């Protein structure tokens, strides 16, 4: 058996010390050890994008990231997007206004991916958004509304 190792993660600006098996992925560490269940585990093999989080500001898949490899990094999850007063992030607001979800399971990943997409400068047109958001699947197929939401948030 492996010994758990001590790991220091900065999640949404807050430093967290956890004990973790080196085999644990970041999505499992966030959900089961840090207690933030907003990050969703979909396919668990890097194909659906539901587990998207930001690591040092870049969107990545937390199901293909071993938690031990991001010790010391700044991790942003869906719980950390809102402003200090609880005001939703502009992307969250745009998703609400555009009705860009149905069941909601892929939404945290969609929102974090959209934050990355806009920051990278790839939200200039609906076609560009579709291409640069293609790593986030939506089984409810809310794609037209998602594209609208990302477009709306990008110009804010």
């Amino acid at each position, binding site marked *: 058996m492996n010994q758990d190792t001590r790991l220091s993660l900065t999640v949404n600006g807050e430093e967290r010390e956890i004990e973790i098996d080196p085999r644990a992925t970041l999505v499992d560490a966030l959900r089961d050890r840090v207690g933030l269940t907003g990050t969703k585990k979909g396919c668990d093999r890097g194909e659906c994008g539901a587990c998207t989080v930001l690591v040092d500001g870049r969107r990545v898949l937390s199901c293909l990231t071993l938690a031990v*490899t991001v010790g010391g990094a700044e991790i942003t999850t869906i719980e950390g997007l809102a402003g200090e007063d609880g005001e939703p992030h502009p992307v969250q607001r745009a998703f609400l206004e555009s009705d860009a979800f149905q069941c909601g399971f892929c939404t945290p990943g969609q929102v974090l991916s959209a934050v990355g997409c806009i920051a990278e400068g790839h939200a200039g047109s609906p076609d560009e958004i579709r291409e640069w958001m293609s790593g986030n699947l939506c089984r409810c197929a809310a794609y037209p509304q998602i594209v609208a939401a990302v477009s709306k948030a990008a110009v804010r």
Partner: protein
Amino acid sequence: MRTFDYTRVRGLEETLAALGEPGTQPIAGGTELVNWLKEGIEEPRRLVDINRLPLRDVGFADGVLRIGALARMSDVAADEIVAARFPVLAQSLLLAASAQLRNMASIGGNLMQRTRCPYFRADTAVPCNKRAEGSGCSALHGDTGAAAIFGWSDRCVATHPSDLAVALAALDAVVVVRGERSERRIPASEFIRLPGDEPLRHNELRAGELITAVEVPGGAERSYYLKVRERASYEFAVVSVAAVVRAEGGTLTGVRLALGGVAHRPWRLTAAESALVGVDLGDTTALRSALAASFTEARPLAGNEYKVTLAQRAAVRAIQEAAA
């Protein structure tokens, strides 16, 4: 997932010493290895995290583009020199995977991807010589729609998944690898092996070696990567073409072509490259007949004869786009 020890390394000597120990594997972006760990396809005793090694730089000097093995796909694609002087390289990177995976995946790791087919990862274990050598090849007598048309053996008919590798093959790039005692330089077109009798020997990297860089000579301003796939984004190629051309007054004076999706490794079309010199870019019929020189050796399987036609048509378009 089997248990493993985890170590972070910071220097190359330390890394190479660690990789010399049996059962040790490096981890960079993890986008492939973590899947294989979960599925029991890889069972290292120790993982060495190489992400802090100083191998992330991309630079152009003395006529050579040098890409550190740990540079991320998205960073290389966004590099100004790469975008301006090696469009085929930037395009191959941007047409691969998804934005999240490109942010994670390293250049060295991209080249280390397993050549595989759906049977390799089947939910219920089926014969696959790349999982258990000698167990057989389910694809050979199964669904061959996505299989190779060149260079396959009865041990394996899978096609390699890397778009980048195809571009690097057309660009005559070199994969630089370091072992504890020496450095080796391997042509990118030969880095991934053909299956032959040893389908488990996936590439030319030897035990204990690490890819440190990829070097690409010269410029390739007139180049293009065409990827044909079953959906518009986030999908492996059915067939892809990397074309690097030189032309004067509408006539081809030099062409380098590599195909993806057709073999266990990128497939250079050397016979066609010679036959294409002197051909008028606007003469599609002449381009097609010159390309045919490389397809006499095609060996399509029951379900993939379409790739022979598709690859030639895609190559025509890639050449014309590269020259445009």
